[in-house]
């Protein structure tokens, strides 16, 4: 998955990348973090579906772990991808809010 790839993907990938931008986390940490900042609760299957896609695209990578739980960390490509995606979202949000404000006034 490239930057273009996550542009059209669901927001879940963006949520995972955003969470990992704050530091490496394993599955449970990711779920709790995403729930805290986005009020979205991902299930384990959904979360690892996202992680699998992102890892395959080279946007995240698994870190070695002593137990079976791998922490995941965002790669440089992942940071760039999520930065672009969030910038684009912010631009659309700003534009949309301006229009909505105009319609309400």
């Amino acid at each position: 998955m490239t930057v273009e790839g996550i542009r059209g993907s669901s927001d879940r990938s963006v949520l995972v990348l955003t969470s990992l931008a704050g530091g490496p986390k394993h599955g449970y940490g990711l779920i709790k973090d995403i729930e805290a900042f986005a009020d979205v609760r991902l299930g384990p299957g959904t979360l690892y579906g996202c992680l699998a896609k992102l890892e395959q695209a080279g946007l995240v990578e698994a870190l070695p772990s002593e137990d079976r739980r791998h922490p995941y960390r965002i790669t440089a490509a992942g940071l760039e991808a999520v930065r672009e995606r969030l910038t684009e979202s912010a631009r659309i949000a700003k534009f949309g809010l301006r229009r909505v404000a105009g319609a309400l006034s």
Partner: protein
Amino acid sequence: MRSWLFRSLGKLYPKQWRERYGKEVEDLSKELLAAGEVTRRHLLLELVSSGLAERVRSLNRVRLVVVSGAVALLAIIGLALSLGGVFRGRPSASPPPTCRIVGHPLATFAWREPLPTSRVTFTLTKLVPLPGSDTLGQMKVTWIKRVPPPRFMVTAGSAMVVVSCTGRVDRGTLYIHG
């Protein structure tokens, strides 16, 4: 949730995916359950749906088309079979062996199965021996959803008798009166 259940659910996922992430998903699921963060039912549904999603995602385009086609074909066959069930109660092309003519224009036809009681409109045509005659006539049965009783028309050549069902349409016997 027991390990055998996770193993069973794991089979929904593509093998490669399962080998890479299966244990992590299982551990995370158990952790969420232990922490009371998720109910067993939600977890089960989530694992099934995401497993199917991964399975679909793993298919390449050709296989996806083939699988989609097979699913569509199965759906069509299922639909056809279910509609066939609707019509199973109709008379066959030849009169049923238990058909009993009790006099013209009153007739009794044995029915092997109940007629459909709330289905879409359909019209059936069959040849039946005319009451009191050796000739075959054509019977049309029109059944309209939620508009009982059904109406029957028995025609022979230019003669036509429109009959209606005055009795209860039930398993076994259909009574029609002219």
